[in-house]
């Protein structure tokens, strides 16, 4: 069973966001594999252990993304593909999905896995769009996956509960926290990773022109939130503090 994992490199969730010249400043920021994509990698590796086959990690991004792909290879994925092109500075989700679709089309696959959301732009779009572009069924936010032959049974999170679905593969599934516990890359894995293939492709390699991936959305204008400030602290005995708080929530904040 061959599996493609769509990976995005994101800022560490601890990262402080700084704007420089109206852009998000990546200087000195720790970058990591998007945490939800780690669940996708782990699930792919578990399936590989069960059914055999190869796991290919595919990503769109700059030079730095190679380190994240290498980490995925150290975890046990077999090869990586990075689409790295200078024209990709300001692409939107539509374009990334189209590029991934072209890249994935060159790889034999039975299943595509991705994280349900990227913790940077939080848009939750690319994997679902990729499914549409490849004309594959998709299920978002899965918590459990069983595969038998060409049939997948998945449990996905819905508001207020869960839902069990059956679908044929190939398909695109996005991973929610709870699907598994991602492994750490082992020391042996790290040593082996550098010998594995990491293919770097340009748009031209995929037969895409810059015009083909012109954004459907405007370039975002970034701003920082006005920081919240410390408010009132209650005083007195615990009972007095509770009473004061209840009163303030009712009369001042008017939220109770």
């Amino acid at each position, binding site marked *: 069973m061959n599996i493609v994992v769509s990976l995005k490199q994101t800022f560490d969730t601890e990262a402080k966001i700084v704007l420089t010249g109206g852009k998000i400043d990546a200087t000195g920021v720790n970058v990591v594999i998007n945490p939800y994509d780690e669940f996708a990698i782990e699930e792919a590796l578990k399936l590989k252990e069960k059914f055999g086959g190869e796991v290919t990690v595919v990503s769109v991004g700059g030079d730095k993304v190679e380190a994240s792909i290498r*980490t995925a290879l150290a975890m046990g994925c077999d090869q990586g593909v990075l689409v790295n092109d200078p024209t990709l500075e300001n692409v939107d989700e539509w374009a990334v999905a189209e590029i991934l679709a072209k890249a994935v089309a060159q790889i034999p696959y039975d299943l595509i896995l991705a994280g349900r959301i990227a913790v940077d732009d939080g848009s939750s779009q690319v994997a679902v769009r990729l499914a549409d572009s490849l004309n594959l069924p998709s299920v978002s936010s899965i918590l459990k996956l069983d595969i038998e032959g060409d049939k997948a049974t998945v449990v996905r999170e819905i508001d207020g509960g869960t839902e069990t679905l059956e679908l044929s593969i190939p398909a695109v599934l996005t991973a929610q926290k709870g699907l598994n516990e991602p492994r750490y890359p082992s020391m042996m894995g790290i040593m082996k990773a550098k010998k594995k293939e990491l293919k770097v492709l340009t748009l031209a390699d995929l037969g895409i022109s810059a015009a083909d991936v012109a954004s459907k959305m405007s370039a975002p204008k970034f701003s920082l939130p006005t920081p919240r400030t410390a408010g009132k602290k209650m005083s007195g005995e615990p009972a007095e503090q509770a009473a004061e708080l209840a009163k303030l929530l009712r009369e001042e904040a008017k939220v109770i």
Partner: protein
Amino acid sequence: MKFELNDDHIMMRKMVRDFAEEEVKPGAEERDEEEKFPMDLWKKCGELGLAGVTFPEEYNGVGADYISYAITIEELSRVDASLGVTISAHSSLCANPIYKFGTEAQKQKYLAPLATGEKMGAFGLTESLAGSDASGTRTTAVKVGDEYIINGSKIFITNGYYADTYVITAQMDKSKGNKGIAAFILEKGTPGFTFGKKEKKMGIRSSATYELVFEDVHIPAENLLGEEGQGFKIAMTTLDFGRIGIASQALGIAQGAYEEALKYSKERSQFGMTLSQMPVIQFKLADMAIQIEAARLLVYQACYMADQHLPVSKYSAMAKAFAGDTANFVTSEAVQILGGYGYTRDYPVERMMRDAKITQIYEGTNEIQRVVVAANILKD
């Protein structure tokens, strides 16, 4: 000259740090309190390859360099020095002498399962009358037929009781002094080999420290490590490399305490400003950072010597002495910055300060390190 880690080292550091933060740190306080050895964490370390970093792949090791090893011990010790020394003693003091002095058969039989962490290793050199001075070794080995019979005891043995494989030294010919000492590989469960006192320690309390007792222990002749009379040399070489592990442990303790102090100083306010805004605290933090960086460079230089197969003794002794002193200075300052809170067990710097002390004592006291350094610089 390049002052940067390569991509593998960066990935290794991140992996061990993630593992340490997520799996090791949460229980460190409780394990210290209860003196509980973490068998589960040991297993996980083995699965991640942390038990055999520097050994070649042909013996199931990772085949990585000493920098990778130092990073491993440093990152584990940053959150839990006890686990750091467990891995260090296992790798440096048991697996390494077998790798360096063992026969091919010994390496296949003993090193391979040590490198994967399937088996744990320990090293028995110290005795009640042979501390810094190994010539006081009272444990004896007598060759009878195709066996050696061992009698005596060893004290303060890290990983004792839990380890499966022990490298021990014993005196075969007292008249030859150090040249009468031999080293042996001993398996747990061998009749006559038992464990005595479990030490109650000031620090590294969740690492196991036991007395080993030998009463007519029969060891097959093939378990002689190196040659008869080579035991002292094996022990000294082992310690030359082992000090890289302890230096890394000390460095990790210092780094952990420094980070705690740095974080606290930014959060804690007194006199209307954070501690980090006070020059007196800034100077403390700067001194801590300077010492740590210097220690790290010395540790990595010792690793470089080991990786290049250059003489390591002087550098590992320097690194161990300096990093050990640094750990004690930095943890003490960290407790000072945290003040009353730092002195309580609600904050990890209290444990770190207790853990730091041993790094000036074991695998050669820091006084002995200076003897080693002096001997090296005076011999030219």
